[in-house]
């Protein structure tokens, strides 16, 4: 695959509501970044559709967002496997990070 084609890829977007009790705190943050790191795509997350966006592969930056239960997580991704990455992350959040 050529890097140029990745750069040309448009951002794909997805959003999902945080329904687990504790929100995006320590363990969920780690699980989210671990999942995001399995993909080559650049993946970013935000709590508003317009950002500010943070790297979904950085637990430090995700913890700074302090997303709580009931908030909506917005994802945007670009790269060859962006679509699969979004599917995996949305599924993880919907499954409440496998914690409950």
């Amino acid at each position: 695959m050529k890097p140029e084609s990745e750069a040309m890829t448009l951002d794909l977007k997805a959003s999902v509501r945080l329904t687990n009790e504790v929100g995006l705190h320590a363990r969920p943050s780690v699980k989210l970044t671990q999942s995001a790191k399995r993909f080559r795509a650049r993946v970013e997350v935000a709590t508003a559709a317009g950002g500010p966006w943070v790297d979904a592969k950085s637990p430090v930056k995700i913890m700074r967002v302090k997303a709580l239960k009931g908030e909506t997580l917005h994802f945007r991704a670009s790269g060859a496997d962006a679509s699969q990455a979004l599917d995996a992350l949305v599924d993880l959040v919907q499954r409440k990070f496998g914690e409950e």
Partner: protein
Amino acid sequence: MERVISGLGAAAGIAVGAAWPIHPLSAVARMPGSPGDERAALTDAIHVAAAAINELAAAQSGEAAEMLGFQVAMLEDEALAEGAFAAIAAGMPAHQAWAAALDAEIAGYLAADDPHFRARSSDLADIRDRVLRHLFGLGAVAIRSGDVIVAEDLQPSQFLAVDWSKGGGVALGAGSPTSHVATLARARSVPMVVGLGPSWTTLSGIVAVDGDAGRVIIAPSAATLAETEQRSAARKTAARQAEHRRLEPAVTRDGTRIAVSINVSGVEDIAGFAAESCDGIGLARTEFLAGDALDDEERQFGLYRELVRWASGRPVTIRTLDAGGDKPIAGYTVDNESNPFLGLRGIRLSLRHPDRFGVQLRALARAAAEGPVQVMLPMVTRQDEIDAAGRLLDRTLAELQAAGIAHARPQLGIMVEVPALAFAIGDIRADFLSIGSNDLTQYAAAAARDNPAVAAYADTLHPGVLGLIAHVARHGSAGGRPVSLCGDAGADPRSIPALLRAGLRSLSVPPGLVAATKEAIRAVDLSEERGHEL
């Protein structure tokens, strides 16, 4: 050869393990190198710290392993040290740059409204100190299950960073049985001995911490170890039995029901604790409302409401700001008092800051709309202080009424800590009374809580102190007025029989000691009471 060092028992029980000395980070220094050297030193320290935590995580399972995994994930994330590396490039030594970057990160967590995020600040403090230790060449504080921490003194955060679920103990050169870290140790049943003096530095190898007798045994003999093992097993059996009956009410042998409520320092303390196993909150401290939260009605209201909702109809006693004494708040308490325990603290300070006090009363009155809230004034000496607080509360209620904000009038009661107030209690008008036995004892026995040298004098079982408690229990409860006790003595199995005989029927204790307190109450037979007049 077995050797014994005597100190003061701060948390009951006995623990045998390898001595693990902790030298304070503030006592060490290092020579910084060039920015390139400093960058390399920090990179190396982060890698070594991450590897050490990984190793620790491998030996753990479940929640402990996941929390250590979180620390590793944070350390391995380059974003964590970005600020530190930038500062190093600008000429700052690695240890200062790292500490500053992590302190900024920690401040962000502490500013969170959500307790889950705030609670994670201790993980970051742990990460910060682990890396600093490597930078200072001190090695990791990788305390293994069952180790005994030996140190001059221990910070609450250092204590909390250790997983105590598989045993271990603490032996301190300084410290006091009434310190915050001692309270934590009792709440988690971690044996602790304090006040060992300078000889704490000689503790090494296998040591036995005997929190019951207040001593540490170095190189215990086979006979000592066998006896220790036996006592430890008996304690565990008793604890299991107590835990089994935690949800049952506390009734003495002769059938007297004793209310057992809990002391909390924040909403973190009720997480995972079933309200059904207690009779409500007997003391919610509000000193955690430092900084901005002192003036933040919404934040306070949110926290108080969380306590009220958790209690589901049980009384929630919230103490108004008890700053001063050994709990200074920058910009609020008075600096350089010659004797802060006898100075401006508690209600004395609150009445001098009516605006701030009003914010807290407003938040409390709003929370009272959701369930029974009891507002408790600390350090009261005279009736006019209660009356002044009552007038302020009236004004607050009128304001809320005018603004159309949901509220209710909370009960207004007091802590009985000042001996002069205790003697006069029959003439004092307040909705409820709660004996703060730690302060009442230090004032009545003239033994400062922060001075380990006089800790043995601060004995709640002194006949004079017990006499004061009996006087308050008898004359304070006239007309059915509730009288409770919320000091350390309430959860001390050695004190409980005497407190009940003195007439108390309500105790408030740390959540972790509810089961053991109830079990100690069940062993008391008040019908055997000797007719003593105190």
